[in-house]
């Protein structure tokens, strides 16, 4: 990403040829920073290595701390703190379901926690990336959010609660899966409906047409064009164009 004084910032995103925003200040700034945030970001090209050296250990330490098996007491206090952070919002998010915002499921640990974290993370969209889930994004925001998912699951929050927590602060935008109620339900209903509709059209077409010549459906002879001279001449032409010898038996 370069920025020059003239209000032109171009961002190079992780997976695309280039992104240029040269207009509104708002967009420019906000998203300029997004791209910055995903990794150790430093100002000048010549200092980038030292910058990454400063930030990389921080990142590594965070990861290391995560990777190390925490002591039981530490884990307990971690889950207390996550409940403290999350419960208020959750109680508001879906008062019917979450009541007091306390965990509604069993605390998870070990392989079950790993597995569930991966599964839930794949359903939460990374807000700073473009389209990938927090499970797939290497950006530090996504890593933070994934850690939050993990902590919530470890404290006994259910998958549904975790998702509602993120939806509460980010909106439905954060769900990789569109909601199944309200207007977005269209996206779930339309494809099966289209399939059904298409199938009906095909059936209608077949019935409509087969009424005329149908009769000897018992006759299994695959004589395709025997009863239709026009089709026979068409077929002969198609085959000639294709360099085929006179029609084969099959």
């Amino acid at each position: 990403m370069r920025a020059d004084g003239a209000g032109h910032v171009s961002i190079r995103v992780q997976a695309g040829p280039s992104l240029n925003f040269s207009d509104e200040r708002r967009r420019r700034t906000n998203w300029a920073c997004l791209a910055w945030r995903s990794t150790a970001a430093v100002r000048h090209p010549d200092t980038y290595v030292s910058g990454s050296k400063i930030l990389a250990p921080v990142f590594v330490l965070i990861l290391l701390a995560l990777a190390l098996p925490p002591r039981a007491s530490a884990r307990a206090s971690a889950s207390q703190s996550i409940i403290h952070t999350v419960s208020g919002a959750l109680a508001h998010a879906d008062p019917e379901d979450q009541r007091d915002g306390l965990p509604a499921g069993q605390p998870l640990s070990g392989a079950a926690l790993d597995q569930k974290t991966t599964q839930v993370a794949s359903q939460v969209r990374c807000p700073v990336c473009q389209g990938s889930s927090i499970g797939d994004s290497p950006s530090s925001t996504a890593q933070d959010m994934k850690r939050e998912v993990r902590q919530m699951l470890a404290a006994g929050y259910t998958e549904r609660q975790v998702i509602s927590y993120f939806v509460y602060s980010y909106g439905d935008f954060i769900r990789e899966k569109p909601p199944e109620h309200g207007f977005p339900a269209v996206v779930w209903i339309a494809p099966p409906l289209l399939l059904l509709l298409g199938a009906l059209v095909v059936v209608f077409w077949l019935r409509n047409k087969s009424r005329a010549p149908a009769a000897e459906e018992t006759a299994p002879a695959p004589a395709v064009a025997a009863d239709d001279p026009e089709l026979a001449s068409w077929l002969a032409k198609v085959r000639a164009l294709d360099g085929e010898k006179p029609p084969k038996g099959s």
Partner: protein
Amino acid sequence: MKAGILIGGLVVVGALVAVLYSGFGHDPRAIKSPLIHRTAPDFSLERVDGKGTLSLAQLEGKPAVINFWATWCDPCKEELPVLLQAARGAKGVQFVGIVYEDDPANIENALARHGGAAYPTLIDKGGHAAIAYGVAGVPETFFLDRTGHIVAKFPGPLEPDELQGYLAEIRGSGS
């Protein structure tokens, strides 16, 4: 002529083009905050100056401006003097800075460059608060009325006049 294809096709085409056209007005990356008009999520974070922690509850019924920023973000640093100046002049509004993924030394440096802190700056380790506020990029600023409800969210750096407009809004509301 097939009237069905003509009418159906034109309807589908019209709808598709209209939807695509509507996309020009929006930035696909700008996320609208669902937190507006809701109670601001609580936080309790360490102060960068080492004077203990600060939580939302401690703001004692004052309107508040919560600014998420970081020193590695250029626009945040453009915005910082605007906020600092407004905070020095504003009476009855509590400003709070929340720094995300940053180093205390960098923050102190940045603040010192603009005449020192005018309001508490907190460190958000692991991004709990940022996630709770649905922050998708920095800077982002939240405006809270005196009852602790979020009145507005502003993504990107604030200009002085914009900031004053929001300040007037939160001073006037929620009483």
